[in-house]
């Protein structure tokens, strides 16, 4: 027995000394999120997972987050909510109560952010989300939710300005919107803008989310000879809308969509049929947007494309901004205490690849949208804060005249 112990001693000593030599590493800062990785909205959900990951990797490579003199690595804990809002609420609850993550990152889509922010408010853990633009999320006086998507109510702001400036301006406008939180918000905000611009709203229709059949609405647009069509919906609906417009030979002078146009897979899915479509984006990969970790937005887009094989759009940029906002807040607060980080977030002000980050009193960012148009195989910036940038292709010709 004693001989065996004797043989074991050197090994034991080695182990003990190894333990003593290694300095205790600072604990990881864990950011938790429940994202739509499967399910009907997974197509856009993955932008967030990829964005969070690339941001965390890049920040860790640069030394991590420095809190009160100690550098901490960032870690991600991501759950797949299968595009089910109820599941996402349970998963956020689990992230806070069981996994005990430090801070929260948001899901995609306003209806998710709306429900999940109730969890962050309940447990008083700050959540920065870049996927929900609906004004409803920020109208409940919650203190722990912050958002990096420009307000839904102003999505068509610059588009309406542009319509006013067109020669001649459209004689009639149709406003179509899905009945989910984001699109209802968009419509509510767009109506007064159209009225103030003196444009006549000839059609104002709410349709069911995930609708597949737009034939009736398109027939009405054709019959009323509507000049400009504004559609607030999600990607599949817009794809169906454009395809059915073609098959019914409906070609208004212009149409603009709240989603899809900035995204590569949307343009690929429609091919040549995507031409002439207007959209908007609060972000373009321009070298003018400087960033502490990525250099600038252009370099970020290249890095993202190289790593994931597809172009980032504003969803991805927004996701990265969320991570950066949390890191800046932790450093400025010098602490991981949720309350202190929350207060630091409220006062945050910095430039990033997504643009200037600052949250208003309700927790929402305010960024202007730039009107973009698909012109041939290019995505052109058409109208911004200072007026026309490139000439828009207007009016849109009939489908058989393209």
């Amino acid at each position, binding site marked *: 027995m004693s001989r065996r112990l004797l043989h074991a001693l050197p090994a034991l000593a080695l182990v003990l000394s190894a333990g003593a030599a290694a300095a205790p590493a600072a604990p990881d800062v864990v950011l938790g999120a429940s994202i739509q990785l*499967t*399910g*009907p*909205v*997974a*197509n856009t959900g993955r932008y967030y997972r990829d964005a969070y990951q690339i941001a965390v990797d890049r920040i860790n490579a640069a030394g991590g987050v420095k809190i009160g003199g100690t550098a901490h690595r960032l870690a991600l804990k991501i759950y797949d909510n299968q*595009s089910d809002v109820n599941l996402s609420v349970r998963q956020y609850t689990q992230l806070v109560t069981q996994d005990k993550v430090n801070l929260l990152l948001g899901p995609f889509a306003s209806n998710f952010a709306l429900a999940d922010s109730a969890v962050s408010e309940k447990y008083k853990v700050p959540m920065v989300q870049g996927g929900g633009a609906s004004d409803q999320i920020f109208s409940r006086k919650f203190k722990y939710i912050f958002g990096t998507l420009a307000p839904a109510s102003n999505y068509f702001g610059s588009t309406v300005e542009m319509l006013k400036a067109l020669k001649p301006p459209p004689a009639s406008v149709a406003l179509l919107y899905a*009945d989910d939180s984001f699109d209802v918000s968009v419509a509510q905000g767009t109506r007064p803008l159209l009225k103030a611009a003196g444009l006549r709203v000839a059609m104002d*229709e*709410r*349709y*069911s989310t*995930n*609708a*597949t*059949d737009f*034939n*009736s*609405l398109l*027939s*009405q647009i*054709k*019959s009323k000879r509507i000049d400009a069509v504004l559609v607030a919906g999600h*990607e*599949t609906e817009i*794809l*169906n809308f454009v*395809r*059915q417009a*073609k*098959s*019914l*030979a409906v070609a208004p002078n212009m149409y603009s969509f709240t989603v899809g146009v900035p995204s590569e*897979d949307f343009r690929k*899915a429609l091919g040549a*049929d995507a031409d002439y479509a207007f959209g908007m984006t609060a972000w373009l990969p321009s070298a003018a947007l400087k960033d502490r970790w990525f250099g600038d937005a252009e370099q970020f887009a290249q890095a993202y494309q190289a790593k994931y094989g597809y172009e980032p759009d504003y969803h991805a940029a927004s996701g990265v901004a969320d991570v950066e906002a949390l890191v800046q807040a932790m450093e400025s607060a010098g602490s991981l205490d949720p309350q202190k980080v929350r207060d630091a977030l409220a006062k945050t002000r910095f430039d990033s690849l997504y643009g200037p980050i600052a949250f208003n009193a309700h927790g929402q960012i305010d960024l202007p949208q730039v009107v973009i148009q698909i012109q041939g195989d290019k995505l052109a910036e058409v109208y911004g804060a200072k007026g026309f940038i490139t000439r828009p292709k207007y009016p849109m010709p009939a*489908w058989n005249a393209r």
Partner: protein
Amino acid sequence: MNLLAQILVNGILLGGLYAVMAQGLALVWGVLNIVNLAHGAFIMLGAYASWYLYTDLGVDPFLGLPVTAAALFVLGYALQRGLLNLIVRAPMFNTLLITFGLEVVLTYLAQLAFSADFRAINPPYAGNSYALGPVTLPMARLAAFGVALALTLGMWLFLLHSRLGRAIRATAQNLVAARLYGVEPRHLYAVTFGLGLALAGAAGGLYGTVSQINPYIGATLTAKCFAISIIGGLDNPLGVMVGGLFLGIIESLTTLYVGPTFADVASFGILVLVLFLRPSGLLGRAA
């Protein structure tokens, strides 16, 4: 253009497609007394099969329909023979439960195999349209409608005049008597279910040319097919066609006169009314 005429045409074309989606469900329900809650999931599989045929092998979606239908027939035969035959004599709602379970499994496997991305079958002629006086007819929908009519007529003739069709109807009426006539029920049940799924597969191929497909379309499609089958009556493929047209027109008119978000209220509201007042459907024999 004439708006009302266009809306009616839209409704009719939509209705034809609805009808072919529901044919398989009505057949299996009326004959085998199997209420297939997974029916929509099989339509989804048919759509994906057509998509792969078109994208990977360049087969035109309409020409590829027989292949899709055949593939789903085999699947249906195997499923009935291997699984569903085991619970045929159990209380009715066991089939509801088991097919619901199948729906969950199929959707999950589809999402695993095909990812959640949306796809569409977009042959070059899909965006074309014909102008016919005051209305515009989208080409893809018109073709789908044509196929729907052909399939409905084919089913009706088959059930009425062919030996196999009559054997199937005999089995539905009276299992014991059918046995006495030398009909092998297990095989016949499997053939019927296979036929039902073949129809679903063909419907899926058609659906893929007019709409986006993803693994989750099954549930909504099943609900629609239910409404159509009940409204039209389970006994007769022509009844299902009438049910489909009826629903398509009602939905289009509701969208025009009430609002797009009320289309479902109309369709399911009518379903409830039909169930309360005349459960055998508009064309079915009185119960």
